[in-house]
């Protein structure tokens, strides 16, 4: 125990730990539920047996080759999008920023779509190229958005950033519509499903493609949590405290873009996670990014995994794309926030 620490800090720390444990337990429970959910149901005992290596070959195939990678991807995407959203909100100091709403996802989507339309979806290595392409697309969108919201003497105004982002997203969607029409029906189906945000890559390669981005970027962002805290105090205070404002903003923006792009390349258009997860987190544990980053990653994972599992169950045997489920849950929540917040 640190004797200098006031009681309030300890209370917050304990609260954060409690919230983290609750969501970890929730994630584990969901994980097990999700494993035995689907067209073929497997009861929990068999699931556990199979995981520990004493199951039937059929169950093993189903769990290890189909459900487990898909669940893992859902968890990773949730983390990536949630942390990306938390960082964006920190940068623009507006709780309504989200990589989907401000056009970063659209940029990634366009790049992936171009690739899929002109090359094949079957290319073995394309799995690993996709996140990079998505990053380029999202990065290009972010650069455009940043450039248009930057004004000499004023820097980047958060409001302008969001408005410009919405416009860029609209422009990119228009371009994507043009592209969709040129596709043959099979590729079209693929692209439409992808755009609607379905976790299509249900194999371990996608996990491998996604993982390095998160393993590098989430800890990096975590290390920057104090920078995010200080950014929250306002530009002038941040400068006064010796922060290189524009530089830190750009670095963080790049990290947020990377996280969103890698996730979107696998998940397609899943919006709102980056908005809801950080917001719920802030309500639960306050504004300290030391707590916000890890907990919002957990909440994001819970959110996407729930949506993915629900999407598999609701209209069985048909699947509803995860993005659609997330939007149906997320948009009303966003609108509720919008009605409640005073900006």
């Amino acid at each position: 125990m640190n004797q200098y620490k006031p009681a309030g800090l300890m209370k917050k720390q304990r609260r954060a730990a409690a919230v983290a444990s609750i969501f970890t337990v929730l994630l584990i429970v969901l994980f097990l539920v999700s494993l035995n959910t689907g067209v073929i149901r497997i009861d929990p005992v068999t699931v556990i047996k199979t995981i520990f290596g004493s199951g039937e070959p059929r169950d093993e195939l189903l769990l290890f080759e189909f459900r487990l990678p898909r669940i893992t991807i859902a968890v990773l995407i949730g983390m990536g999008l949630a942390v990306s959203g938390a960082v964006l909100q920190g940068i623009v100091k507006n709780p309504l920023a989200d990589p989907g709403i401000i056009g970063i996802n659209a940029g990634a989507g366009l790049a992936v779509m171009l690739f899929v339309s002109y090359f094949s979806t079957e290319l073995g290595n394309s799995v690993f190229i996709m996140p990079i392409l998505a990053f380029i697309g999202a990065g290009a969108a972010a650069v455009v958005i940043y450039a248009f919201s930057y004004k000499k003497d004023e820097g980047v105004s958060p409001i302008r950033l969001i408005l410009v982002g919405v416009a860029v997203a609209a422009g990119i969607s228009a371009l994507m519509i043009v592209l969709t029409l040129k596709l043959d029906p099979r590729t079209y189906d693929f692209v439409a499903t992808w755009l609607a945000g379905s976790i299509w890559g249900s194999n371990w390669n996608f996990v491998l493609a996604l993982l390095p981005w998160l393993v590098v970027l989430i800890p990096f962002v975590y290390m920057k949590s104090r920078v995010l805290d200080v950014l929250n105090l306002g530009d002038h205070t941040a400068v006064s405290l010796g922060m290189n404002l524009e530089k830190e903003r750009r670095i963080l923006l790049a990290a947020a873009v990377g996280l969103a792009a890698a996730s979107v390349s696998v998940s397609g258009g899943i919006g709102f996670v980056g908005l809801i997860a950080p917001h719920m987190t802030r309500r639960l544990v306050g504004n300290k990014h030391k707590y916000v980053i890890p907990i919002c990653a957990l909440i994001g994972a819970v959110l996407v995994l729930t949506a993915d599992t629900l999407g598999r169950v609701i209209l069985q045997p048909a699947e509803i794309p995860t993005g659609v489920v997330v939007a149906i849950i997320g948009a009303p929540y966003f609108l509720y926030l919008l009605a409640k917040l005073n900006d």
Partner: protein
Amino acid sequence: MLNALEINNIAVGYHNRSVINDLSVTIPKNKITTIIGPNGCGKSTLIKTVSRILKAEKGTILLDGKAINTLDTREIAKQMAILPQTAESPGGLTVFELVSYGRFPYRKALGSLSKEDYNYINWAIEVTGLADFSDREISDMSGGQRQRVWIAMSLAQGTETLVLDEPTTYLDLAHQLDILLLLKKLNIEEHRTIIMVLHDLNHASRFSDYMIAMKDGNLITKGSPEEVMTHNNLRTLFNIEADIQECPYSGHPIFTSYHLSSQDKNYE
């Protein structure tokens, strides 16, 4: 007399509109210096340039003899703390947490607060009279208390120099005085250099050792309150005719009422 800041021939502007053309002024160490002047005179621009939110198009600003544009921004933050006019208070922070951000320039990316950090934070909370509130949420506090918290944060920065842009704006009379007395105490007991912008001339005169008067981006006059707060200077600066007296507390010049120089008749 040693100088905390030396401003040499700076020109500053924004949106291609120049606010300060050519300004040179020095600010003494360990004193309270107040910048006064009418709206739009460039006093806030000057503070923003000193606090490196705006860049000077030409000229230099020396902090302890070194040009601030050559220094690392964190190094400056260890020597000079700035309290902006519109400090935003994010929700969900306690007094202790906000004050602890004052240690930002000293801290590495990871790791918790050091013993030295705790000492500074606790001292800053103590000296600003906030010891009983350190676990209080800032959003639950009054305007005057909040301003104390921000000052405490600047103090936790452990700097020789403290720059404040209109620290008493939006506060009621008692809280204004309270903040100024706190600054005076810091100056006398801790020998801090305090540089601030004030709108209230009587407060400026009463609490300052040194005053800088600006108009239209130019330096009009500088010196002790007695030298600056004269009939002629006030007419030049604000177009007012003031009845100057002596402050019963500080002995500095103040005035109780005034009328406009241009007004040929007073309907009173």
